[in-house]
């Protein structure tokens, strides 16, 4: 039985996703106390880690002309980036001990450097762009050790939590090389941002 570690289950989407994993006979553990779910035992091996840190503060709706809220940008960065860095560092020994070696983060296609048309959400988008670069650097380091990576946008405004959780489960658990039914194709070495409707987004 594979063990999947969630950093937390803050919204309905993450709880639905944890439910799917449990139903599919994964051992689901949650790092930050969530009643009803098991917690990680010291030294326990983890196969898949899902960092569900994905904070968009309500005050982050300013434009440049409204006035930049440096405090909002800092809080968003500390949560979405620094906290995520610390989580990975903390649980990497557990993942090294596991067989699955799959790391997953939640993000948003609007934090694509190439594609965003946003004029609001500076804190979130800038933090996620920095996180994407962190993930890229981490993948350079950990891919040779057998790790694979998933970055997923649940499309929270467009897709129901149930549908997004189903899409996330398939994306997280499948080998990417099989998605085109071509056994020769294996793009696990390419870091990709996928959304809940199966679209790949540029960084």
């Amino acid at each position, binding site marked *: 039985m594979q063990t999947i570690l969630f950093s937390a289950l803050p919204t309905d989407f993450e709880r639905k996703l944890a439910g799917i994993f449990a139903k599919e006979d994964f051992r689901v553990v949650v790092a930050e106390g969530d009643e009803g779910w098991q917690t990680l035992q010291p030294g326990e091996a983890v196969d898949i880690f899902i960092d569900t840190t994905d904070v968009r503060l309500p005050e982050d709706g300013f434009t440049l002309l409204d006035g930049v809220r440096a405090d909002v940008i800092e809080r968003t960065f500390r949560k979405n980036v620094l906290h995520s860095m610390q989580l990975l560092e903390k649980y990497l020994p557990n993942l090294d001990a596991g067989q699955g070696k799959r790391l997953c983060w939640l993000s948003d296609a609007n934090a694509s450097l190439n594609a*965003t048309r946003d004029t609001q959400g*500076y804190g979130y988008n800038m933090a996620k762009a920095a996180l994407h*670069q962190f993930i890229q650097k981490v993948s350079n380091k950990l891919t040779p050790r057998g790790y694979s990576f998933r970055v997923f946008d649940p499309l929270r405004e467009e897709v129901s939590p149930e549908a997004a959780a189903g899409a996330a489960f398939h994306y997280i658990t499948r080998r990417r090389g099989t998605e085109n039914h071509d056994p020769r194709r294996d793009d696990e070495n390419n870091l990709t941002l996928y959304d809940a409707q199966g679209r790949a987004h540029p960084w």
Partner: protein
Amino acid sequence: MPNVLITGADRGLGLSLCKEYLQRGYTVFAGKFMADYTLLEDLRAQNERLHIIWLDVGESASIENAVQMIERTVGTLDAFISNAALMGRTKCDLYDPPMEVERAWDSFRVNALGPLLLTEKLLPLMEKSPMKRLCYVSSEVACIALMKYRCDEPFPYPMSKAGMQMGVRMMHNELYERGYMFRLFHPGWMKFRNADGSLTEIAMYDPDDIGAIAARYFEKDLYDEHRLVMVDFNGYEWPF
């Protein structure tokens, strides 16, 4: 004649850009951060159109002071060149904990948040300018896709530059229709300028040569201002 603010002007590309813009007749406001470098003061002794401002782009109060000084001195600003950056090595190895994650915040605060805050504060001075030129010195390390092939540097600097690039992208989304023109420039690997003005032999390019190229790129009008692109000293576009 137009005027320009250049941050991180103590040495390197920033200092070279100051020289270049002075030669072009601009009034130059040079952001100074390093007390042990006096190359700006030497330049000031030769040219009274150079105004030295103490400027730490990572500190809001320092930004406010700089903007107020420009306002008092000339009242308007035509071009802003964000060149200051916090680099340097840091302990960020996943397999040698603990990572110094605060260094990631320091880099982001100076390299990404600083240019955003400074741009915001400068906008009232630039509204009446016909140039409205906002220029950001960036790097190939901002390109997430390209970093697939690089695992030698620590995390904070590339992370901060990706964050900065996102900030510039969003400002472009917001300000292009108001007549602001954006430049993202990748200067390449430049020689380091010592406090005595000499250049190290390590690295490839003389910052004076790159400064001349950058100034031309920053100054000229482009036919495709609606596109935000990062251009290097050869004029090649880089992916984000």
